[in-house]
């Protein structure tokens, strides 16, 4: 992956920013959470509906930069139809890649989400990309609000239920 930050703003990310998938609200979600980045004002709401062990529906809305919105859009598309354990594993892998702990080439499950690997070159923007994934984690854990500036900064604590 190129270290050129401009490469980050490539078609797939811009497309998800322009036409975010699963954008909106759910009528009766089984899980929901709110994600906040007080430093830049990114603010998203995430809701999902578990049918048995499957994420049957998922939706997000809010105000955010392109990186955050595209990440949220691609995340919802990636985890829909999967079970929570698979979704959490994907979240772990995404956060590890975005924070530079995992090379994109070694990220076995990320697929097209690897377009975000260049974000690790932009420390000021990493939080934008991982906010949706932490919000997903918070929704599973029944945490109403997660913040990038919370006491346990998610940047410093690897995601995971281990």
């Amino acid at each position, binding site marked *: 992956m190129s270290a*050129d*930050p*401009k490469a*980050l*703003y490539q078609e797939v990310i*811009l497309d998800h*920013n322009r036409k975010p998938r699963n954008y909106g609200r759910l009528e009766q979600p089984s899980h929901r959470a709110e994600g906040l980045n007080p*430093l*830049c*004002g990114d*603010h998203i709401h995430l809701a999902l509906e578990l049918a048995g062990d499957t994420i049957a529906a998922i939706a997000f809305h809010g*105000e*955010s*930069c*392109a*990186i955050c919105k595209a990440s949220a859009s691609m995340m919802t598309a990636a985890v829909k139809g999967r079970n929570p354990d698979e979704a959490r594993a994907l979240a772990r892998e995404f956060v590890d890649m975005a924070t530079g702990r995992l090379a994109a080439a070694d990220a076995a499950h990320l697929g097209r989400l690897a377009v975000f690997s260049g974000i690790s070159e*932009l420390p*000021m*923007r990493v939080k*934008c990309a991982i906010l949706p994934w932490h919000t997903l984690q918070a929704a599973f854990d029944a945490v109403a609000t997660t913040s990038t500036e919370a006491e346990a900064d998610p940047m410093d604590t690897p995601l995971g239920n281990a």
Partner: protein
Amino acid sequence: MTTVAAPAGLDSARVRADFPILALTVAGKPLVYLDNAASSQMPRPVIDRLVRYRTTQHANIHRAVHHLSETATTEYEAARGKLQRFINAREAREVIFTSGTTDAINLVAHGWGRRFVGAGDEIILTVLEHHSNIVPWQMLAQEKGATIRVVPIDDRGELLLDAYAALFNDRTRIVAVGHVSNALGSINPVQRMIALAHAHGVPVLVDGAQAAPHLTVDVQALDCDFYAFSGHKMCGPTGIGVLYGRAALLEAMQPFKGGGDMIHTVTFESTTYAPIPNKFEAGTPPIAGAVGLGAAVDYLSALGMPAIAACEHDLLEYATDRLRQLPGVRILGTARDKAAVLSFVLEGIHPHDVGTLLNEEGVAVRTGHHCAQPLMKRLGVAATSRASFAFYNTRADVDALVAGIRSVQKVFA
């Protein structure tokens, strides 16, 4: 009112040659530094002065009788004198060296506020304030059970003076107002505001962090009671700033920090404090910082503050015209009296994406809430992009900003 009396123009090429950092390239492009409201760059004479201090003059001050200690003390106090003249204070002892504007405001909130603000009292701030001129007062208000009252603005970003006048009552204890808004550039009519406060017997602290680098500041003409500013926004080093205070008020204040250099005599039963300014300068101060700031105000004074203001005003007018002609760009803050700060939003593009992509063109702007969240809320935006100019910027820098904005818009088209 800004009156520009035909200043001698600055020789742009010569001025730029004084700033080594302006020769850098970023992302393969020449650096276009438009984040001066956050921190300015340092000219060679200030860098050289710091080197000379470090290599030939440093020791601790006010202590020993040896040569270097006397030299350092002389240079430190000479810097105080330079700062006194720069803001036209009556006496050098009215100039307290602090670590910056934030430290200076905290000093007043603690040293003056804890003594003179009580339960049920009121503190007047404005919606334009930087967090550093909000939070110290909020902490004081919470401790004492006092109330914060806020002066509103109109849609141009100008303070509403009728609303300001209506906030005063017999519980008003202090007014704290920014001279120039860091987020919008509005130059506030502080002289009139101070006169009105004084008519009610209320002292005024002016946060001059964004004014001291760009305007002629005369604390006697303003008749302010406190004036706070930072070295690093006016071509000086970080870690040094100034609190100007009227001598009588400073003398009535409690020290905020205890330690060496601020005492007269110490026993385990009691301590008597040194006279001002030492009373407020506990411990070893940033001596090199003060010396560097002294060199910075020498540099600015040699160029002339009226010439600096005129140059920056020209840049602001040119940049405002150019950005107004760009589709999809909205300028926030259109006060009639304005410093060279240009806050803007691009339709459909988040400021953080703007900042990242402008950096790829070598253009450094600030993006975010500018430590002014109450103001962002009033404007109905989460964040803006902000280009802030200094006298070493040029119209070519503005052109690079405009080209950069076009390229950002192209990415998102």
